[in-house]
C-alpha cells in the first residue's frame, strides 16, 4: 500500500506501476459500490421487467411498467414538476451561492471573519433533517410567525396559506438546504484564484462586473460543476423534503417512486428509478463536459 499511496513522478523508482497503484487505491470504493449499489441496481433492472401484485414479483416478463412510463401523461407531469423544481432551485442557489461565495472571498477582508461566516453557513447543515423539516410549520404555518407578523402589520387580514404545504414551501426548504453546498464549492474554487490575478485585472481597468465575467467565472467552473451536481442530484433524488413541505400534495418523480415502493409495487418503481438515474447521469455528464472536475486533479 505505501507505494500505492501517492502519485509519483516518472523519475521516481516505483514498486507498482502508477496504473496498478490507482487501481489498488480505488479498489475499496469500487468493491463497495459494486456490491452494494450495482448488484442491487442489476436486481432492480431485472425486476422492472417482471409482473407483480401485493408485494410479490412474479418471474414473468411484463412490460407494462415500462409502457406506462413511456406513454402516460403522469410521467410528463412528474418530470415537468421535477425539472421545474430543479431549474428554480438551481438558478436561485447558483445566484445566491455565487453572491455569498464572492462576498466571502473577495469582499470580506479578515480571514477570521470569513471563517466564522463560513461556519455559520455550514452549521445548520448538520442539524437533523426531520427536525429541520418540522421547524418550518411554526414559521410558515397558518398560525406561524410570518403570518402573525403579516397580520400584526395589517398587511393581510387572512393568513397567507401558500407559505406552507405548497410548491413554494418545497422550494423554500430546498433553497434553505442546498445553498450551502453551492457556496462551499464555489468559495473553494475562488480561494484558488491568486489575489494578484484579480489585482492585475483591476489594474487593467476591468470593472467588478468584467472581473466576475471574464476572470472569476471561467476560473470557478469546476466549483460550479460540483455545486450543481450536488444541487441537481439532491433535488432529483429527494423525497423527504417534497413530502414534508407539500404535505404530500405534489408529486415528483422521487415521490412517485416512493409511493409505489410504499405500496410494495417494485417493478414500476424500478422502471422509474432507472429512467431517473439515466437522466441524472446524463445531466452530470453534461456538467462534466462544462468543467471536468477530475481533470483538475491530474497534473
Amino acid at each position, binding site marked *: 500500500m505505501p507505494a500505492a499511496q501517492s502519485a509519483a513522478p516518472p523519475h521516481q523508482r516505483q514498486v507498482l506501476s502508477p496504473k496498478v497503484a490507482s487501481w489498488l487505491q480505488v479498489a475499496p470504493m469500487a468493491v463497495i459500490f459494486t456490491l452494494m449499489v450495482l448488484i442491487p441496481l442489476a436486481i432492480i433492472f431485472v425486476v422492472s421487467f417482471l409482473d407483480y401484485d401485493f408485494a410479490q414479483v412474479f418471474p414473468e416478463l411484463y412490460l407494462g411498467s415500462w409502457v406506462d412510463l413511456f406513454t402516460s401523461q403522469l410521467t410528463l407531469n412528474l418530470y415537468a414538476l421535477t425539472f421545474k423544481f430543479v431549474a428554480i432551485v438551481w438558478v436561485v442557489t447558483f445566484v445566491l451561492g455565487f453572491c455569498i461565495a464572492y462576498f466571502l472571498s473577495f469582499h470580506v477582508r479578515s480571514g477570521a471573519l470569513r471563517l466564522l461566516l463560513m461556519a455559520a453557513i455550514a452549521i445548520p447543515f448538520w442539524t437533523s433533517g426531520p427536525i429541520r423539516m418540522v421547524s418550518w410549520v411554526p414559521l410558515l404555518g397558518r398560525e406561524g410567525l410570518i403570518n402573525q407578523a403579516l397580520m400584526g402589520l395589517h398587511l393581510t387580514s387572512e393568513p397567507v396559506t401558500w407559505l406552507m404545504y405548497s410548491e413554494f414551501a418545497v422550494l423554500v426548504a430546498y433553497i434553505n438546504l442546498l445553498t450551502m453546498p453551492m457556496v462551499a464549492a464555489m468559495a473553494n474554487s475562488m480561494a484558488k484564484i491568486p489575489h*494578484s490575478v484579480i*489585482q*492585475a485585472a*483591476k*489594474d*487593467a*481597468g476591468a470593472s467588478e462586473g468584467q472581473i466576475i465575467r471574464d476572470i472569476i467565472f471561467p476560473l470557478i467552473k469546476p466549483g460550479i460543476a460540483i455545486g450543481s451536481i450536488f444541487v441537481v442530484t439532491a433535488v432529483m433524488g429527494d423525497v423527504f423534503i417534497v413530502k414534508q413541505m407539500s404535505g404530500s400534495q405534489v408529486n415528483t418523480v422521487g415521490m412517485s417512486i416512493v409511493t409505489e415502493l410504499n405500496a410494495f409495487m417494485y417493478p414500476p418503481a424500478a422502471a422509474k428509478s432507472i429512467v431517473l438515474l439515466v437522466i441524472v447521469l446524463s445531466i452530470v455528464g453534461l456538467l462534466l463536459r462544462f468543467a471536468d472536475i477530475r481533470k483538475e486533479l491530474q497534473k
Partner: protein
Amino acid sequence: MKLALLKTPDTDLKVSPVPKDTAPATPKLKQATQSHRFDAEIVSVTKRYAPLGAPAVDNISLRIPRNSYCCLLGPSGCGKSTTLRMLAGHEDVSEGAILIHDREITTLPPVERGTSMMFQDYALFPHLTALDNVAFSLKVRGVAQIERRAKAREYLELVQMDHLAERLPNQMSGGQQQRVALARSLITRPKVLLLDEPLSALDPFLRIRMRAELKRIQKELGISFIHVTHSQDEALALADLIVVMNDAVIMQAAPAREVFETPTNAFVAKFLGGHNVIQSKGREVSVRADQCHLGARPGMNSLSGKISMIEYQGTNVRITVTTAENEDMTVLMPALTYFDHAPEIGETAQMSWEASDEHALAPM
C-alpha cells in the same frame, strides 16, 4: 535628499519592425511625450497597517526623474514592496501624497494612475492564452477583438513572445510567462511601470538575460521603471537611480555609481558590499575593498588582524581579515598581485589604505 539628474531620453525610438500581416501602420510605442518634471514623486509618505502601530513606511520622500530605471533596494521587510504597492494603488497611503507625471494620484484607483504593475508571481490569467492575457485590458475597455489582438501581438513582439501567442500560462516556462506579464503591463501604456521582484523566480542565466531585456525595453519606451529587488547586483546593473531602504526609511537615493562610491552610512556601505566600514580617528568611514591593500605601507592608515578566508574570484582574489575585535574586513586585490605573495589563512596580516580613499559616513 539627493536627486539624481539624468539625461533626458533621446529622440523617439522605433520598435523592431512589425510583421507585415498585422497592423497596417507601424505603431510608435514610445509613451512618454508630455513635458513634466518627474515621472513619479513621493511626498512625505507614511504607511501604517495598524492605527498606532509601527509604520511600515515612515515619512519617505523621493523624486524619480523622467525616463529613469529606478531600483528600490533593501532587505526584506524594509518597506520597499509596500512603497511599490502604494505607488500602484494596491495599498492605501496613511499620510503623504504620490504624484505621477506631476499629477497627484494618491487616492486614485490603480487604473487611473498611469502606473502598471508586474506581479512577482506574474498573475497571468490561467484560462487565457498569452495573446488574450495581453489583450485583456483592451477587452475590458471594449476594444474590438481584431484590433485588440493586433495590438496585443505588437506587445508580444516587443517582448519576443509572439511565437507563443496561443499558449496558455501553464504551457509556458517561467521566463516566458514573465515576458507575457511584461507585455500585459505595457499594453496599458503606463507612465510608470512597477516591477515587484520580477527576476527572483528565474534561474541566474535567465535573470541576466532578462535584466538586459528590461533595460532595453525601458529605454525603448522612454518611461520610468520602478523595480523592487533585494539584489545589489541587479540594482547596480540596471538602475539609473538606486533607492536603498532600511527600517521603513530611505537610506540613500542616488545614481548607482554615487551610491556605490559614496554610501551615506554604514548600512548602505555594508548592504551594497565591496566596502569596509572602519572606525578611523574617531569617525566612521568606508573604504572600498579594492582600495585596501595587504601589508603595512608607509603613509597609509592600517589595522591588523588574521587572514580568515581567501576566495579566488578569477580576476580578483578576496581576502578576509578578521580583526582583534572580531570584525571582518575585506581586501579585494588583482589575482596577479595576490599570487606574488600568496599569504595563507591564519597568518597575521596588516590591512592598509590611503586616508584619501576614506569616505566619511553619516552616523545612523
